[in-house]
């Protein structure tokens, strides 16, 4: 009775393995069919084939130029927000006073729509990289602060008590106990932040830029090249996805122990 099972489960396993791909391909085919059969014009919803054609109509070197412009700002903003967020969360975790002073300020910054503030930042800091990096940093650093602080506070109290009973200095308590416990939290914060970094860079490019994928998309719509705008959009989301993945790879490479155990 169990004879047929392996065959059946081979299909099941393969289908399961490629499920995301199958779903994605199916979606694209459906999209293409709707556009072709429904005779949807390109300026309303471009078909996947029109988007791919538009992608290859733009020179590769231009794509790289725009990609580099966006990626540079996104990564600089991301790194800056890590440099700000980590010390800030350590400080907030260690000092109750600092926590009380800074937390409301952080919430105010986070709840201010950066899109609305962006033009003001450009006026203050100019149209070059610094303003774009700041805009990106403003969008990205909050999730990092929250996740790092949460992680450090979730250290089992017994561990802290133990280290205190052994008279371990505070810096060792932070570096050797709290931060390692916070690593999974920090990395989930990083994953959220890296995708926000791309959004931040694009927001900045919408306000002032001469290059970058956000600028390219805005440019394409201003010339009513909708398929080209879509190709920029899809390129952008692929980059976002890759960055998200690379944070996971970094975590696997540097802190394999911090990953949830596979069943």
């Amino acid at each position, binding site marked *: 009775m169990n004879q047929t099972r392996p065959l059946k489960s081979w299909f099941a396993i393969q289908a399961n393995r490629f499920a995301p791909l199958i779903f994605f391909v199916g979606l694209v085919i459906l999209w293409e069919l709707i556009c072709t059969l429904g005779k949807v014009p390109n300026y309303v919803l471009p078909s996947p084939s029109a988007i791919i054609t538009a992608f290859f109509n733009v020179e590769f070197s231009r794509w790289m130029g725009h990609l580099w412009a966006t990626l540079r700002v996104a990564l600089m903003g991301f790194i800056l927000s890590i440099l700000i967020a980590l010390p800030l969360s350590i400080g907030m975790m260690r000092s109750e006073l600092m926590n009380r002073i800074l937390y409301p300020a952080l919430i105010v910054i986070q709840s201010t729509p950066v899109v609305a503030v962006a033009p003001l930042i450009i006026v203050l800091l100019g149209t070059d990289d610094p303003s774009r990096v700041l805009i990106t940093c403003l969008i990205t650093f909050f999730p990092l602060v929250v996740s790092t602080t949460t992680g450090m506070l979730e250290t089992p109290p017994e561990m802290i008590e133990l280290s205190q009973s052994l008279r371990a200095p505070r810096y060792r308590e932070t570096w050797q106990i709290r931060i390692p416990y916070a690593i999974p939290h920090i990395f989930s914060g990083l994953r959220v932040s890296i995708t926000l970094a791309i959004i931040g860079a694009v927001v900045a490019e*919408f306000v002032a830029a001469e290059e970058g994928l956000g600028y390219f998309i805005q440019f394409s719509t201003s010339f009513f090249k909708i398929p080209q705008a879509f190709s920029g959009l899809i390129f952008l989301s692929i980059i976002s996805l890759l960055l998200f993945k690379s944070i996971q790879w970094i975590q696997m490479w540097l802190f394999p122990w911090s990953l949830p155990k596979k069943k």
Partner: protein
Amino acid sequence: MKKTMKKTLELSLLAGLIASSSAMAADTVTFQLDWLPGGDKAPIYSGIQQGFFEEVDIEVKIASGRGSTDALTKMATGQSDIGTSDIGALMAAKAQDDVPVTAVLPYFTQAPHAFFTVKGSGISSIKDLKGKKVATSPFTSSNAFLPLVLKQNGLTEDDIKLVKSDPGALSPMMITGNADAIIAWVTNTALFDAQTKEAGKELIEMPWSDSGLSLYSSTLLAADKFLEERPDVAKRFVKAYAKSIAFTYQYPDKAGADIHKMVPEVDAAIASAQLKSITGLVYNDVTEKDGVGKFSTDRIQQTWTYVAEANGLSADALDPTTAVTTDFLPE
């Protein structure tokens, strides 16, 4: 070892010398566009490509803008020295808050605002818009002038159904019939025309300048700081820019190629088509009467009258002649 070091030192000194001498040779000017690069922005690109600015020893850096007021702000805060933007926006800004920016050379001597519709929508003149759905973009300067142009045609704003939408969505809305007509600049005519043809329809353009709204529009403006601190550079710049405008409209195909060379995303053919379709904004009965590149006091006054009415400002809020200087016009 020592020899190579000496050689390196010599070379780097030489390189430094070349770099500094070339930096000393040309004055750098940051040029502000009021929107993204496109056909109507071609003069600055042609000027650079044709060497008009090099002739007067000026090196130009171009910054794109996101609307008239954005361009004004960047000039007022000193991030850019000179650029093109709507003189109406300048006048309104000056009346409310004395922005340190002044107009130096006319570019569009007619307003570029227009209604667009497709054949078969039952609209053939502005008067036919009564009861129709008209789409516009939220931040265009055209919106301020809309009540005036409607009034000139015996309509009020209540007579039409005005909806606001992203600039990129306007033309598709018109073609799909989501809107009966749209408001946009005639600089878009070539693009709209291509799109409506693709959809098998025919475009109708109704410029507001035809129905009485006659005023200065896109103008070369400069930061007061730039004019005060580097008057000589400003003068040379304006001269080269005037030459660039003349070249652009005389050779639109070359100008299209020039802008494409510097901004590969701009299609050369579309840019030259845009230029050909807007020649009337630059050269028209106004320039025939007043001369090319000349401001007339009457028209400055008339422009301000419209701007004041459109923005709900009192007519004495500004002496419009203070928004303009003729000191930098080429002789």
